[in-house]
């Protein structure tokens, strides 16, 4: 029999987690779909379940120094309306799911789910997000690209959980966000894109961009970003083209995904030129 635990405090949650391997249940908007069973039967959990979505200690957005700290159980809706939320993250969240889902779905859940189509991820990548992972006495912090290993796979020990997401409060001079889904709301991304650029004396000082849903994990290349100043638009596009290797699936085609990524990058580079 699978047992459910609803800890009253974060402390208690960590203790429970330390004793027992458990499935972490945040808003459940991914989990309940994945574990769905014949209606009338309990969901298909094979381990005990720890309900963490109501832990108040994990619901916050705080600014400190050049960083913004978001508690893992902060809901998407709270992120959407918070004044410290970076504009590009707000844009991404606004296009996620539907209002009802956003009120229960959490940022920690979106990261923990590690879907190639997770819409917060490209934004978190370009904001150099770090994931604070906590277990009893084992707090550690890893960059998001090291945390997400592949579809549904994260770098997390069985007695750990995501406590917080720390993002760089970079203020880009220009941002660009695109989500392409099958319809205008409540759709899984076929492609998503987040980009930001800052200038110094008419030259690009910071160039960052990331593509979602076109590879097993988000595509971001720091190496390429560092070299853009010396490259022309065509060269930049060619380099990204090599990194983007989408697939055919029931939602779209590889050819379309690739082509549209290039078009979006084109638009982004165009816009970058205009800003100069």
């Amino acid at each position: 029999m699978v047992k459910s635990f609803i800890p009253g405090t974060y402390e208690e949650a960590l203790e429970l987690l330390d004793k027992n391997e458990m499935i972490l249940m945040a808003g459940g908007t991914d989990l309940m779909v994945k574990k769905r069973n014949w209606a009338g039967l309990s969901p298909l959990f094979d381990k005990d379940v720890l309900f963490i979505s109501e832990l108040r200690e994990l619901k916050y957005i705080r600014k400190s120094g050049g960083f913004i700290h978001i508690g893992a159980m902060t809901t998407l809706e709270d992120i959407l309306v918070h004044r410290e939320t970076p504009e590009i993250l707000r844009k991404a969240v606004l296009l996620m799911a539907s209002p009802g889902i956003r009120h229960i779905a959490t940022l920690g859940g979106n990261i923990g789910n590690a879907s190639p189509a997770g819409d917060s991820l490209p934004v978190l990548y370009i904001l150099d997000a770090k994931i604070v992972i906590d277990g009893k006495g084992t707090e550690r912090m890893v960059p998001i690209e090291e945390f997400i290993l592949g579809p549904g796979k994260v770098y997390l020990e069985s007695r750990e959980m995501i406590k917080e997401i720390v993002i760089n409060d970079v203020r880009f001079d220009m941002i660009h966000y695109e989500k392409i889904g099958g319809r205008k709301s409540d759709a899984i991304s076929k492609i998503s894109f987040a980009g930001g650029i800052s200038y110094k004396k008419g030259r690009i000082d910071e160039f960052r961009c990331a593509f979602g849903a076109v590879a097993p994990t988000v595509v971001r290349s720091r190496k390429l970003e560092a070299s853009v100043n010396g490259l022309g638009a065509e060269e930049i596009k060619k380099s990204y083209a090599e990194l983007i290797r989408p697939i055919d699936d029931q939602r779209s085609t590889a050819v379309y995904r690739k082509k549209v990524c290039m078009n979006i990058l084109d638009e982004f580079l165009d816009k970058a030129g205009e800003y100069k």
Partner: protein
Amino acid sequence: MSDISRSINKQDTNAKTSGSIEYISDMKIEGALHARTLRSTMARARITNIEFPEIPTGYYIVDRSDVPGMNRVKIIFDDMPVFAEEEVRHIGEPILLVVGEDRAVIKEIIDGIKVEYEPLVPEFGYVNSVIHYDYEKGDGEKYFKDGSRIITGEYKTGYQEHIYLEPQGIIGIFEDGKSTVIGSMQCPYYIKNAVVQALGIENDKVRIQQAATGGAFGGKEEFPSLIGCQVAVASMKIGRPVRLIYDRVEDIESTTKRHPSLIKFKAAVDEDNNIRAMKVHVSLDSGAYIGLSGVVLQRAMIAASGVYTIDNLSVSGDVFETNTVPNGAFRGFGAPQMFFAIEMFINHVAQELGEDNLEFRSRHLAKQGEATSTGGHFRDPIIMNKMIDKVMEMSDYKTKRKQYSAKDDFRGIGMSWYLHGCGFTGSGEQKHIKAVVRLRKEKDNTVTVLAANTEMGQGAFTTLRKIAAGVLEIPVERVIYNNPDTDLVPDSGPTVASRTIMIVGGLIARAALKLKEQWVDGEEILIEERYKQPDYVEWDDETLTGDAYPAYSWGVNVAEVEVDKATYEVNIRNLWGVYDIGKAIDERIIIGQIEGGLLQGVAYGTIEVMDTKDGRIRQRNVTDYIIPTACDCAPVETVIMDNPFPLGPYGAKGAGELPLVGGAPAVALAIENAIGKKVMKIPATPEYIMELLEND
């Protein structure tokens, strides 16, 4: 008397919006057992052996050997087995039911059953024709020989899934030698006839009751007959009620959908740029069983010339059997496929001739008195010119069309013209349906409508009550219409084919008139009316010629779109529609039908993607099968023009299917206008639009 079109509260609104209504899955029936279906995992195979785990007491396997009557579901063409026989013919085909009390145990049993298959070669293409029809109007052969200009076109349409509110669900009860089946349905008597055949028992030993139905769109026309038979067989075998309620994924993967089609045209054009003759061929993919496909094919074929008069027509069509889930009834019933194709083709012909498409289409537009595609006649006034003028004025069509055609800014506007024949094709009403309705005046001076037509959100109970109340000149609250129960109501036919208001409402109006004449306060009076085909209707089933329908509803739509240059996504900015449905019995209900139908049609033409891989549907849940959300609804402006049909109640014709028909062509034509490329298939997805733009 107030105008019948003035809206009143819909009978089912309060219960549906407050959540108090009981859908089939909410029904608690004493002692009911659960059932779950074991399905084929092969597209085509011979079942060589089925190995069962140990079945605990209180759990049952129900399969074809339990069917006491005929193991065939009665649906016009009786080729679908109730439970699979030696050969399974599509993935998801029901082989047997596992029935019992505890769902977890049922699942365990299902998981423990091992079916051994000997694979057979499946067919997925347009190869095996199982039904062929053709008809001729005039004699067009010479025009294809004498050097007139020949223009061809080939169009494709995809699947469409109903996504009705609640998945299929049905409960069977067998008591004292009598089988009762309750469920979400459109056609209680279809199920009754099917159950009678499957159980092989007397007609009066089968009773069907409609449960609240949240939506159907044709998906609950013939499919419930299959599961109705299954629970009837199971409850008879076991002696306890059996409920079979589908999950959404199971529903999407294994129930009927709109037939994909391939439609080919060949037109001969004379020196004055008029189409002299046309050859049309329709291919429909029926999936693994024919079911209603032949009738769907007929409706598609009859619509071959759209709203245009083509003097010489040669139309043929085939139903092709494939090893995929069977396709069936869906709002429009073949017409959405054909109207997409013909509207595109007419525009493409105009384009190739270098003619203004409006001018070209107007010249060919059918007029009152002219011959229909099948050589019948448009007897009643056609007010399309007025409707077209109106919709162009509302949408500023001409200015925008000119502007968008000249500019390369990826904006476009398109207009579709269409009609929909009301009621069953040909003499279907007279020969097969033979509708009967009764009105019973009770002692307390209320009047009960006794008819088998169902409420499924479309407003039938409200509008049919309004008709009776209007004729009787009594308050509508005094007219009662309950969910049909075949033990209590006569067979007034199925709730399909845009027939309910015109045909059944017409019978109710006539019965009401009689009742009014015989009215005596405080007495019970029973009035019966039977359908009589209008004298002027002449139809030949063999040659498919004559009056295919007693009346036609008409529509025009304009869609305005914007295509994103980087992502090829279509943003529908505005939709307009003008309709001739005779007379609206309730304006708000009609607007609901129109806006919902139009949106469903537009989505059919753009975002609703469904395909198969190795015979299996790839979009199996509502995450992957996309239907529009509120955010995807463009503003819709609607005008309904009165054009009363003398034989319809208050002049009403059909309106249920019509609004879906024009959506796809209007939006596809707008996309063409925006991107300057011919759209040859729907859904016109961003992926397809990219292809069109890339393959220069």
